C-alpha cells in the first residue's frame, strides 16, 4: 500500500534529488542480472557512494519483507533484487524452468573444495575426494557455479567459483565461508584415529 511507502520516507529520501536517485538505483538493480556494487551504482548515477547508500536504505524499506514480494539483498559483494520465498509455490506453477536443484553429495563436495582452495585443478580435487571429480566438475561448470581460471604450472585447468555461486548460496563474499578448522576433530579423537591407523599399518607390514 502506498501508506507504507510514504511512511518510509526518512531523512535521506526527503529531498526531491534523493528520491530521484533512489528511483534510478531501483531501476538499475531491476535491470541488472548481476549484483551491483555501491561504487558501480555511484559511477552510473554520477553520485557519491554515500548518496547511493542512502538510496539503498530507502529501497530496503520499500522492499522490506511483508511490504513487497521482492527483496533487496546484499550478495556477492553487491546489491540485487530477489523474489521473496513466499512466492515460490506460485513461481513453480508459472515457470516451467526450475530453479537450481539440490546438489548431489559429490557435487557439493567438489564445490566446497573449489570454494576453499580456488584456484584448484581437477586432479587436486580428485586427490582430496579420493575419487574422480570429472562428472561433478562438468555439472558445476554447466550450472555456472564454477568457471575456468587459467592453467596451473603443470598445465591442468584451474577452477574457481562464480558470482552466481555467491548469489545462489546467499553469500556476500568467499570470506563468509566458515573456517575449515571448525570441522577438525578434537585432539583426542585425532590421536585415537592415528593410533588405529598405525596399528592397522603395522599389522599390514607384519603380514606382508
Amino acid at each position, binding site marked *: 500500500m502506498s501508506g507504507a511507502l510514504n511512511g518510509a520516507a526518512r531523512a535521506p529520501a526527503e529531498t526531491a534529488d534523493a528520491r530521484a536517485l533512489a528511483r534510478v538505483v531501483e531501476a538499475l538493480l*531491476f*535491470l541488472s*542480472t548481476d549484483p551491483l556494487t555501491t561504487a558501480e551504482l555511484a559511477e552510473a548515477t554520477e553520485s557519491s557512494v554515500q548518496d547511493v547508500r542512502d538510496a539503498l536504505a530507502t529501497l530496503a524499506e520499500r522492499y522490506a519483507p511483508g511490504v513487497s514480494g521482492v*527483496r533487496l*539483498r546484499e550478495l556477492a559483494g553487491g546489491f*540485487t*533484487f*530477489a*523474489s*521473496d*520465498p*513466499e512466492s*515460490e509455490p506460485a*513461481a513453480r506453477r508459472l515457470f516451467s524452468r526450475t530453479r*537450481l536443484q*539440490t*546438489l*548431489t*553429495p*559429490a557435487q*557439493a*563436495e567438489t*564445490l*566446497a*573444495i573449489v*570454494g576453499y582452495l580456488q584456484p584448484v585443478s581437477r*586432479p*587436486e580435487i580428485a*586427490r*582430496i*575426494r*579420493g*575419487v574422480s571429480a570429472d*562428472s*561433478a566438475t562438468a555439472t558445476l561448470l554447466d550450472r555456472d557455479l564454477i568457471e575456468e581460471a587459467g*592453467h596451473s604450472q*603443470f*598445465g*591442468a585447468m584451474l577452477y574457481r567459483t562464480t558470482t552466481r555461486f555467491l*548469489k*545462489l*548460496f*546467499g553469500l556476500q563474499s568467499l570470506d563468509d*565461508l*566458515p573456517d*575449515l578448522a571448525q*570441522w*577438525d*576433530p578434537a585432539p583426542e579423537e*585425532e590421536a585415537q*584415529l*592415528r593410533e588405529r*591407523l*598405525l596399528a592397522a*599399518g*603395522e599389522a*599390514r*607390514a*607384519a603380514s*606382508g
Partner: protein
Amino acid sequence: MALAAIELDLDVFSGPFDLLLTLVLREEVDLLELPLADVVLAYLDHLEGRGELDLEAATEFVVLVAALLELKSRLMLAGDGDEELAELEPIEAAEELLARMLDARRYRSAAAHLAQLLAREDGVRFREAPLPLALRRTVIPPADGSADAAQLGAAIGRLLTPPPEISLEHVAVRIVPVAERLAHLRELLRRGSFSFEEAVAGADRMTVAVTLFALLELYKRGEVDWTQAESFGDISITAPASAGRSPMGASAHTRAEGAAG
C-alpha cells in the same frame, strides 16, 4: 525376475536397485554415504516376501553387492595412492592416511554446510531477463587494434606445453629413512643424555614421527632409556642404566632393520 524389482528406501536414495547402480556409477549417489548393509537387508526382505529363492537373481545380487563393497572399501582407503602408501613405513602411511582422512572430512563437512546454505535460500529466485533492446544497442565494441595479439601467441605456447610427468609431487610425502634418524639419535647419545625436543628441533612433522619411531626401535634394542614426566611433556633420553638389559627378540630386529633399509 529382475533385481530392478527390489525397491529401496534409504536416506540417500529411494527407488529401484538397478537405478541405484546407475546413479552410483555416474557418481550421482555417493557410495561412501550408502549403507550397503541396508541394501542387503532390503534384499532379504524382498526374498522373504516372495517366499522362494531365484538362484540366478540371488547370484547376480551377491556379485553386484560384492562389487559395490569392493568399490566402497577402495574409496574409503583413498584409492589412487595405494601403491605409494604400500611403500611407506607404517608410521608414515598412518600419518599420510590420517592427513587424507582429516582433509576429506573437512570438505565433506564444508559440503554439508553449503547444502544448508542452499536450503536456506530455497524459494529465492533472481530476475534473469535480458536487457531491454534500447539498452542492448548501446554496447560499445572494443576499439580496433585495442587487443594484443601477443596473448594469442602466449595461449598457444601454453597449449603446446606437455604436462609434466603426473604431478604426485604435491601429494607425495617426503621419505625420511629410519636409518638416518637412528644414526642421528646414536650420535646425540654419544654426547650423553638429551631431550626429544632437542633431537627434533626445527624438524617437520614427518621427521618428528619417524624420529619417535627410531627412538622406539633403539629402546627395543636396549640402546636407550627414556622418561616422560607427564603426558605430552618432553621426553628425556639417556643411555641405559644397566648395559645388561636384553633386547626384545631377534625377529623384531630383523624386521625393523629390513624396514629401515
